[in-house]
């Protein structure tokens, strides 16, 4: 039993990295080279948040940091900043995960919204302080909103396709936090 859960734990950790890599891959496809007036959701952040609230052990700090740093590098963002903020956000959500286990989805969604908006604001604030060229404000707001709208979709997909659901009270021993 312990071996099985251990294998599953590592499989899910790798599937987080793999899914994120797939998301980056799809972002990079040269489908749209003309500037667009809309922004797609940031699926990596949505995925990391959804999993952090359900199974914190699937998204360890290191893998979130590495994935986000890679995304920063590949997607032409200032490297490190968004990764730093997302790692902080994910850790914050992990610390709230226990309290939100029994809460309805709406409560979870609003907490996620709060963290995501905080990340966006901090990102813009720090870039503004350091006088870095910024993305248009409208587009950033749009991306935040769209990411939030896609959050339930990510949650449903992770639940029904990948089986990432909130830990029931009796699960803690079976899932083996202490490896």
């Amino acid at each position, binding site marked *: 039993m312990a071996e099985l859960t251990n294998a599953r734990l590592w499989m899910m950790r790798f599937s987080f990295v793999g899914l994120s890599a797939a998301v980056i891959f799809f972002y990079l496809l040269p489908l749209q*080279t003309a*500037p667009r007036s809309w922004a797609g959701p940031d699926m990596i952040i949505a995925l990391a948040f959804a999993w952090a609230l359900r199974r914190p052990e699937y998204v360890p700090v290191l893998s979130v940091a590495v994935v986000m740093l890679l995304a920063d590098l590949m997607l*032409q963002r200032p*490297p*490190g900043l968004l990764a*730093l903020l997302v790692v902080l956000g994910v850790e914050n959500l992990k610390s709230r995960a226990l309290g939100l286990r029994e809460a309805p989805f709406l409560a979870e969604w609003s907490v996620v919204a709060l963290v995501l908006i905080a990340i966006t604001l901090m990102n813009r604030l720090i870039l503004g302080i350091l006088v870095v*060229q910024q993305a248009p404000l409208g587009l950033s707001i749009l991306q935040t909103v769209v990411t939030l709208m896609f959050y339930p979709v990510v949650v449903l997909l992770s639940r029904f396709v990948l089986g990432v659901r909130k830990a029931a009270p009796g699960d803690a021993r079976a899932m083996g936090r202490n490896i």
Partner: protein
Amino acid sequence: MGVILLCLLGIFLVWRIDSPRVERFRAQVTDAIVPNFEWAMTPVTGAANLIRNFQSYQRLAEQNRELRSELRQMQAWKEAALQLEQENARLLDLNKVRLDPRLTYITGVVLADSGSPFRQSVLLNVGARDGIMDGWAAMDGIGLVGRISGVGNNTARVILLTDATSRIPAIIQPSGQVAMISGDNTAVPPVEFLESPELVRPGDRVISSGDGGVFPAGLLIGQVAADPGGRLRVRLAADYERLKFLRVLRHHGTEVVTDPGHIIAPVTPHTGTTAEAESPDG
């Protein structure tokens, strides 16, 4: 945890302080990763484009009619163009005009785009291996698309004219006004730093001026257009919807005339230097 956060913060600060070094690192990372996915990217892109084209297949008959009428117009233009081409060739011949022989190009295929709605750039499959250097111009068949910024061994990134960081010195014909085409993340970048905007009319041609010596001169950028607010913008000549093959123009710097010019004096046979130079022979 703390170590990771410090690392990320460190990377960001280093990037802020010493951007070129980190951007080189970024180019290397991209160079190492993206070409490996080329086998997957090409078919997926093709499939996605196929799906996108499907709705245009649905109104095929209508499009066919439009195309036929356009073709008729084009034939008239083609006739005119052929005549002009011949005339131009004759005139160039008469004038003994020497076109810049060093303006050769390398053609690359677009591998990936920037992946983010906030940045406008594409990644080409040619790089330092093919002699690509930062600052060279990239064109599609017709107009300027952008400039090379970031070269890996096998890949090079082209910052498009529409990117918010793109600034290209341009000249507007026929008035000869000098301006800056500065991208702002829209499809039609604005024309800035015009000395007398009243001399510029919508429809004027915008070509690169080569000021500053880092960018080749005389490349077609597009046409001036006025937006509803009255601001002058450039409707780009290159087809940004479908960037697939890009030409990267080799550019070896604009030559500068440093010689102020001397007085041309008649040759005097009995100067000291010529006597000394000739004495060993004689």
